[in-house]
């Protein structure tokens, strides 16, 4: 149930990402995930969605980005915030992600 709520929330977050920054964001999150030492934190469902999207070239689409964002926040939260806020200057998106995290903690 919580998973569904979070999923819907991340869909809203992804809508705040400008089209021209999606590819770069997708690339940076993949890099963060592939070098992450926290691979055990990756839920299987998310991993399979990422692979499905990757196979079909959809990692810059809504579904792919939602899965990447969810996974990146779980495995590498600090790095994800750095990518969003500092490297890509996505201030609004960073704020929305923080709101989702606070909602999840509650």
């Amino acid at each position, binding site marked *: 149930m919580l998973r569904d709520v979070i999923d819907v929330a991340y869909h809203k977050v992804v809508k705040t990402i400008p089209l021209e920054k999606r590819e770069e964001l997708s690339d940076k999150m993949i890099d963060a995930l*592939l070098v992450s030492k926290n691979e055990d934190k990756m839920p299987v469902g998310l991993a399979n969605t990422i692979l499905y999207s990757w196979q079909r070239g959809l990692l810059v689409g809504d579904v792919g980005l939602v899965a990447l964002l969810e996974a990146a926040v779980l495995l590498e939260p600090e790095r994800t915030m750095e990518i969003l806020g500092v490297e890509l200057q996505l201030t609004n998106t960073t704020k929305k992600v923080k709101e989702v995290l606070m909602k999840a903690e509650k």
Partner: protein
Amino acid sequence: MIMVLIRMVRFGIEFVPREAYWKTIYYAVQAEKRGFNYLWITDHFNNRNVYVTLTVAAIYTDKIMLGPGVTNPYLVNPVITAQAVASLNEAAPGRVVLGVGAGDKTTLDCAGVEMQSPLTAVQECIDIFRKMTSGESVVFQGEVFRIAGAKFFFKPKGKIPIYVGAQGPKMLAMAGRIGDGVLINACHPKDISYAVDCVKKGVSEVGKKLTDVDVAAYTSFSVHENLKKATKAAVPVVSFIVAGSPSVVLERHGIDLKAAEEIREALKSSQWGKAFGLVSPEMIEAFSVCGTPDMCIERITQLLKSGISQFVVGSPIGPNVREAINLIGEKIIPHFKP
């Protein structure tokens, strides 16, 4: 003639399924997108299972050929290997290959399994595999294996090409005689030339031509635009290769046997820094294909002239695997395409 061979080269990539399955499969999909033709997954009991990894890879890829590279007949009975590979071939019809060799002595020792009569074991394994995957009921009385009557309850589809993992002259010749391909664990033109001569001997014994066999150089590879970074990534793998190489191979490359022994001892006692520090440029040159994309292209060209038809990029691939696969796909593979 050389140009013709260069145009015909196929690229393979090897992954050790040491990390979580989704990382290995991500790279496998990436390799397919970047133009690789073959995906080889290593088979060691202490990593993720080879057939589980291959099955997931089969689901998320569409055209890349895939198979164990390599399994061995000691830890997995040939009838089970036949079952696993035939089942995999249902998930990826016509894309499956079998790589089989004598195995890695260190890993077998850990499992308490003796590497008995390696040449005969591999030959018998291939014989049993072919019979099983052609749907026969197998009764087999070999020196290593005895099968009392084994048959699948399903109908295996298609002929699955068999690649023999080989290093020694007898195994290489046998690969030429009975294999559809050979996976040669070597990186240097001197070693490849020697190996190809052995394979040629085998093919000529049974009236085949060398071009009937896919000759693959299974290399330790590291690429980066910065030579120092590429080399640094190759050092740990090279140290293990040096430690495991017989004197005759080390001498062929003018490598000091004493230095090799020191590396072996350091690795045994887990003194990684010491072992890696002892790796010399000559060792890197002999036991890896390493450098900038242009340097790697030059070495691959030399290997093609030595007679290979497939070039397999193996560990470490590069300091960053994702970047390295992209670099190979952008700068190296296109160089060899018509």
